[in-house]
């Protein structure tokens, strides 16, 4: 009951009730469909970030990768006449390369992930701006396999959902499985909890971290493409600030910023919560520009709650 994901869940319910009471449209099919369209895009990145944070590292370059990946894909298609499938593959390889560079510098040279991925954020965002000369590109919008795969939509009663929701659900199940039930999850938690202990037991800590950097980068690129396909535009500034929003989702859910303790369920709750706040605050009439004040206050309140719960748990032992 005292677990952080449970307290986050309770707060989420409270928020939902408050917004629903304050504005009758909050729980309308249209609004829920709206929230569910945005949710997977940040949520997918948050899944990778949860695993990475649990292993004791984080990635500030995800927002920039979110912007760069679709831009590169569209440039290849529109300017170089490359087939869309091949272009998507090239985008994927680019994300793998960015993640691998992050991971190798962090683990082999031993620079903190904060500094490495902050630099990577600038490099990747700068690259996106330079190759587009700052102009957004029209995205691929011809119906076909890839559009259906990434941004297809379907109706359930009055609700309209995107295929990205399936991606989010599928990847969430996979992440829950890995972190809680697989051998790899045991390693990830152990590395974040006490890297030396894990290494002393023969766990390949550096390799695991490099793969998690790659995974996070790939998920950020995937989310970027889903977003670009959905709105039929690839902007070089897309995803600006997402890195902090994603990290907020993860820590609000109860994953420790210092590593060792991660929860995918908590991250899903955190993603829902930040999405609901962003949406609900606008509905209840808070000026859009004041949005960040509320988000900041709620995140801070959640973190204080987690800290207090942990303290009281420690005392009861």
């Amino acid at each position, binding site marked *: 009951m005292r677990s952080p994901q449970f307290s986050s869940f309770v707060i989420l319910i409270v928020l939902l009730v408050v917004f629903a009471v304050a504005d009758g449209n909050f729980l309308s099919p249209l609004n829920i469909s709206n929230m569910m369209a945005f949710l997977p895009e940040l949520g997918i990145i948050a899944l990778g970030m949860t695993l990475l944070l649990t292993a004791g590292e984080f990635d500030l370059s995800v927002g920039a990768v979110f912007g760069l990946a679709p831009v590169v894909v569209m440039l290849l298609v529109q300017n170089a006449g490359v087939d869309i499938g091949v272009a998507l593959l090239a985008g994927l390889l680019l994300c793998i390369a960015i993640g691998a560079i992050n991971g190798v510098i962090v683990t082999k040279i031993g620079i903190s992930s904060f500094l490495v991925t902050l630099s990577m954020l600038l490099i990747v965002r700068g690259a996106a701006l330079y190759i587009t000369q700052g102009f957004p590109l029209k995205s691929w919008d011809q119906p076909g396999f890839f559009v259906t795969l990434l941004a297809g939509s379907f109706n359930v009663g009055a609700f309209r959902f995107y295929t990205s929701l399936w991606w989010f659900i599928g990847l969430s199940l996979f992440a829950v*499985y890995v972190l809680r039930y*697989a051998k790899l999850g045991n390693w990830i938690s152990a590395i974040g909890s006490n890297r*030396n202990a894990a290494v*002393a037991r023969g*766990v390949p800590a550096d390799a695991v971290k490099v793969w998690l950097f790659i995974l996070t980068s790939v998920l950020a690129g995937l989310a970027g493409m889903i977003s670009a396909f959905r709105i039929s535009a690839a902007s070089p500034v897309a995803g600006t600030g997402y890195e902090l929003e994603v990290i907020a989702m993860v820590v609000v859910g109860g994953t420790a910023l210092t590593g060792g303790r991660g929860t995918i369920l908590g991250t899903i709750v955190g993603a829902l919560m930040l999405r609901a706040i962003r949406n609900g605050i606008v509905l209840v009439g808070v000026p859009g520009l004041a949005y960040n004040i509320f988000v900041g206050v709620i995140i801070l309140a959640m973190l204080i709650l987690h800290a207090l719960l942990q303290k009281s748990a420690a005392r009861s032992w």
Partner: protein
Amino acid sequence: MQEVLRLQNLQKSFGSVRALKNASLTLREGEVVALLGDNGAGKSTLIKAISGVFPIDRGDIYVRGEKVSIRTTREAMDLGIETIHQDTSLAPDLSIARNLFLGREPVNLKWLGVFAPLDLAKLRDAASALLKRVGISKKLDADALVSTLSGGERQSIAISRAMQFAAKVIILDEPTNNLGVEETHGVLRFVKEMRAAGHSVLLITHNIHHVFEVADRIIVMRRGEIVAEQTVADTDLLSVESLITGADLSALMKRAQ
């Protein structure tokens, strides 16, 4: 007694610092050898070399008479050498059961590699059985997080893990540091049990009293070299202290009298 581990002329330098110069020692089956020395004497370098934290520059390592090379912690473990470092052996955010099997998790569907599901039932049962065998099951639940345990309980878990995997050689690095009196006695009792069970123990400690309580032999290091090797029965506290510091304390004492 049969020889289990033999080190011959091990050398290791870090830049211009020669941390280990020609260190040689032999560890036999079922004996507890204490490795003593002041800070910077080379004890840590020696045990890190044996446990695979870093490779040695020169020299030979023999396990049961066979020459081996140890380049990683994994290789050391596979040769039956388990090291319990001070404070760094367990992951506090993991349960006791998960810590006991860290790096050697029992899994189903082994072909899935790192994605293979943990055999949670087996993990729990084996952990409970182990805790019972080492006599701490009454207090500890296999699912309890290590962060909720006391220092002595953590050392007991780390030691029992080493015993469980039938390690030939168990290296204990300052096992009684930061422990209370009761807990210290518990750990020393463990050391005796390990010897009784046929394990060989290399004990690194600053506390010479503990050495006299559990060790069979004493090896003293100074400035990267092994300067003395004696059986506990043939020596006393004062002469061991003299060997560690390099000053002849017993002569000083006599002169003072």
